[in-house]
């Protein structure tokens, strides 16, 4: 089966959504195409075609190891989207639905891109497609968030383009024919010109790191996640950041082939730890539970890049973390969306006692918080444990200590906010607001499903998944 279907199908769906007449029934396109995409993705996952080395697009091991997670997350968010858009039925959702599906298609493209330029185009396109979604709420705050997202993200994307050029020139200078497929670049390996490669690495890391939301390029994240509808936040946190991460992985492989792997790993480790530290410090003080999710996501991006820096087992652990964190974080985003809608404010200054007003969402929120802070037996516990093991095995004692310290601080911060929101006696205004919000199955089941998935992922990680992750290690981190 041609992996292009993963890109085409959602785009077709987007087209249909764009012309679909009824505002009421249009949202159903989301789960329909999401389901289609999941089915296709898993069919490809089971028997994935061989990728021609020169191909620009392909369902290669990396895509195989990550794309299903994104597709799964999207499906659940889409299911949630139906009931979400029913609640928001006062707003036209044509653009919303169409662009969500477009994003799915572009994400599939980005994950499968095996060409530097193509990868860049896909990432940039996703960034742009997300813009209208961010100001779906149409409030001034939403515009401000979007503006910042666009300019910071745009700067990052510009830098990553520059980096791509540098890499291209490195190959050109090394006598390459200017073929920018990763396969070709890796093959050229040591032939690449060293100064250009290093410049390229810095630019690409900063560029894609901005998309990923690594500190100090994370500044757009709290605003965007705080103001966007929670479903968009979930898709951004679980999908877009993942594309950026896979991009960094692919580039790192080229750098390693050029013989600069150790430098790349050091930079990844540094920026990862720095992101975790910054995120933890912000979490200790933030008072807004949607921004809290953003900082927590920054922290987990740090974990991912640390995992990537460790190579081998670390990368496998990082890919595991992409799955576990994506799904768990999705549950958090969706339940936080419920609470936000019921409480009418995202700040713990005026939201209290949600365990009384929205018991189910609050329960999911608390459970998700514990899950995302590595409470066994949920997925993140296992993935983070693997990261720690990899770090210790490769002798990064101090890094591990810092890692654990940051996890501790983050836990302090998260519990502070979450229990501040859930516990206590609700204010009358909140009470009144919450009466308008009904915890229907449509808004409760999707996050619940995500939690269950994360639980299942932790306890019974399928062997085929482990193999998929190890295949990535074999492809991108060949042991000399």
């Amino acid at each position, binding site marked *: 089966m041609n992996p292009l279907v993963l890109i085409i199908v959602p785009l077709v769906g987007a087209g249909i959504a764009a012309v679909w007449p009824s505002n009421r029934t249009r949202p159903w396109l989301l789960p329909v195409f999401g389901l289609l995409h999941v089915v296709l993705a898993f069919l490809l996952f089971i028997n994935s075609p061989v990728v021609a080395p020169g191909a620009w697009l392909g369902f290669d091991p990396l895509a195989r190891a990550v794309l299903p997670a994104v597709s799964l997350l999207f499906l659940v968010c889409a299911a949630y989207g139906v009931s979400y858009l029913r609640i928001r039925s006062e707003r036209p959702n044509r653009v919303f639905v169409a662009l969500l599906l477009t994003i799915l298609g572009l994400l599939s493209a980005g994950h499968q891109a095996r060409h530097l330029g193509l990868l860049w185009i896909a990432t940039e396109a996703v960034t742009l497609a997300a813009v209208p979604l961010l100001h779906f709420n149409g409030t001034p705050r939403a515009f401000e968030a979007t503006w*910042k997202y666009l*300019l*910071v993200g745009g*700067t*990052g994307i510009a*830098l990553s383009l520059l980096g791509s050029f540098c890499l291209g020139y490195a190959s050109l200078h090394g006598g390459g024919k200017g073929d920018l497929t990763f396969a070709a670049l890796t093959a050229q390996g040591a032939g690449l010109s*060293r100064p250009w490669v290093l410049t390229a*690495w*810095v*630019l690409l*890391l*900063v560029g894609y*790191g901005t998309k990923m939301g690594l*500190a*100090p*390029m994370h*500044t*757009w994240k*709290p*605003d965007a996640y705080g103001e966007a509808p929670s479903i968009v936040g979930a898709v951004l946190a679980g999908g877009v950041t993942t594309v950026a991460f896979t991009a960094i992985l692919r580039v790192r492989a080229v750098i390693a082939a050029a013989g*600069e792997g*150790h*430098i790349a790993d*050091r*930079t990844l480790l*540094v*920026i990862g730890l720095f992101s975790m530290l*910054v995120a933890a*410090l*912000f979490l*200790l*003080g*933030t008072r807004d539970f949607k921004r809290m999710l953003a900082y927590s996501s920054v922290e987990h991006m740090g974990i991912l890049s640390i995992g990537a820096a460790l190579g081998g087992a670390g990368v496998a652990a990082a890919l595991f973390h992409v799955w576990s964190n994506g799904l768990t974080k999705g549950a958090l985003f969706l339940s936080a969306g419920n609470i936000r809608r019921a409480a009418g404010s995202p700040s713990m200054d005026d939201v209290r006692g949600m365990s009384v007003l929205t018991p189910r969402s609050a329960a999911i929120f608390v459970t998700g918080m*514990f899950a995302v802070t590595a*409470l*066994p*037996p949920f997925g993140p*516990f*296992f993935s983070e*444990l693997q990261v*720690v*093991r990899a770090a*210790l*095995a490769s002798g990064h004692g101090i890094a*591990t200590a810092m890692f*654990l*310290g940051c996890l*501790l*601080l983050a*836990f*302090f911060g998260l*519990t*502070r906010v979450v*229990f501040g929101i859930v*516990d*206590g*006696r609700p204010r009358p205004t909140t009470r009144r607001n919450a009466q308008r919000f009904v915890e229907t199955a449509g808004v409760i089941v999707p996050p619940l499903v995500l939690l269950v998935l994360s639980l299942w992922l*932790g*306890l*019974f990680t399928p062997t085929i998944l482990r193999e998929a992750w190890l295949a990535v290690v074999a492809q991108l981190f060949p042991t000399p």
Partner: protein
Amino acid sequence: MTPGELLLLAAVSLVAGIVLGPWLSRIWLAFTLAGATAGLTAALSVLLGARDWEWRSAFSLGGEAVHLRLDGLSAMFLALLCVVGGAGAVYAREYWSEEHYRASAPRGRAWWSALLSSMGLVLLCANGLHFLIGWELFTVSAFFLVTLGRQRPEVRAAGRLYLLASHVGTVCLFAFFSTLAVRTGNWDLGPMREQAGLSPLFWIALAGFGVKAGVFPLHVWLPSAHANAPSHVSAIMSGVAIKMGIYGIVRFSGWLPVPAAAGWVVMGLGATSALLGIAFAFAQNDFKRLLAYCSVENIGVILIGGGGALLAVTHGDAPWGRLALAGALLHVWNHGAFKALLFFGAGSVLHATGTQEMSKLGGLWRTMPWTAGLFVVGSLAVSGLPPLNGFVSEWLVYLGLFDAVTSKGPAAWAATPAAIMLAMAGALAMASFAKAGAMIFLGTPRTQVAADAHESGMGMRGPMLALTGLCVMIGFAPILFWPMVSRAVESWRPAWTAVETPAPLATLGSVHVGLAILVMAAVAGLWRMAHVNGLRRGLTWDCGYATPLARMQYTSASFGGIVAGWFRWLLQPERKMRRPRGHFPAEAIRLEHIPETVLERIIGPISVTIIQVSTSVRRLQHGRLQFYILYVVAGLFALGAVVLLGAAQ
């Protein structure tokens, strides 16, 4: 039935308890009791039998095959867990009843079963990964039990403190187990003393488990958690949960090679906890806090024993190590029994009066004679007074220490101060409980709530009676329990297998029985004499003062004043007083508050600094886009610098 089947039964009924608990309280009780009985039977069958029980699953959970093992040591703790768990379940049905706590009672039942099962999992797991899982589940379910009365802010604060503190411990264990797994190549746990390289890990484990055990400097979470939790929860927290920390320390000091200094450190920690813990206890006015700090003391006693054992191991397997460890393990049981009893008693007082402040109570023996009597028995036991169980275990520990001293080896340098501090701690414990019992139950009621208290029903008295029975039994016939204890000791150190009992427990038991008989005879005799000679009721003689008031009674603060003076450097009491002035002084005030010194004077400032750092960092997110872009550029240059450094090398 084999232990395996029994444990399966226990697990099934506990899971059923979790599922059904919220709705069917009676059936939940049945299931919990069934589970506890099954677990107890399994534990006893291992303790009295010769063989350990071990099981490896075919399937794998979290990528590891489930590996359960019930040996002497874990069986010892499992038995305690089942006893207190069952008793607490009975107690809870009346104490935290449906009609009083409509919302939280169902939750409480489910979490109770969850707590029991997770602690059981911790005791059974012989695989690091699953040990961690069980440990975390145990921590979290304990958290939700502590915060059952969540609408009260101080309960929430206590719960959060507990959660954060135990998370610190968990992170240590995270590091400990993963390092172990990396060093040994797999998650399997078991004896690995020959791998000398592992010995430094003991320190991480000590820190991680020490937090849970409430060893002195790490005890910060313990008082508030115990004081603010529902009393049956306090009972299991203090009776069993903190023993999980002890279990971890003992377990891994037995399995892993320990550094040479381990014995010294553990014994030092133990002695410190014993003396300082009880000093804090004596100064308290809230009787549940007093009990909580007393737990710190008892943990200290246990650690002194454990430290003795470690010292003995590092000093050529001296036989006194066996005595010390046996004493420590028996004290684990004893403390579990009498501390649960005392917390149940405290709960019954709280249930009747609604206050935890001793200065508001008094004279309760009239209205709640049962509680009073059982509380006194508990006090005697916890003060380590003969003829009850507390004395037996402390006596064993003493014997171990004395032998260490008479050995005149280097160990004596640790054992001598430990013995002396243990003695002082014992005297202070006696003082604390003389104070607690007297302030709560004797004299006249200091307030109205105390005056119209009522005795609690059979559902609360039953468990207390059962535990009292256990205390008396261990006190009167310690020899019956010796085989189990020595079985546990053997599984800690196989070298220490000896048939003969190193201490004349039989004689001690018979002396205790004789003493008890004599006491009864004497009491009866004196009572009769008094009645024969004629017994007149009169006002208390207050130097001729004819109309004594309740407020004229000695208060708990004044009772503890002398000792509090000795420990002022530690307690740092906050005083507010106005001396009486003039010839006809109108009023004088003297308020005293004992702060949580370690928490408020050490942890507090540290966390404040961290918060300050975070606030100053958060200022960077000021919303100015221009600066955000500047950050990106800065990041670019910083990473460039990193790369250049790397390239330079």
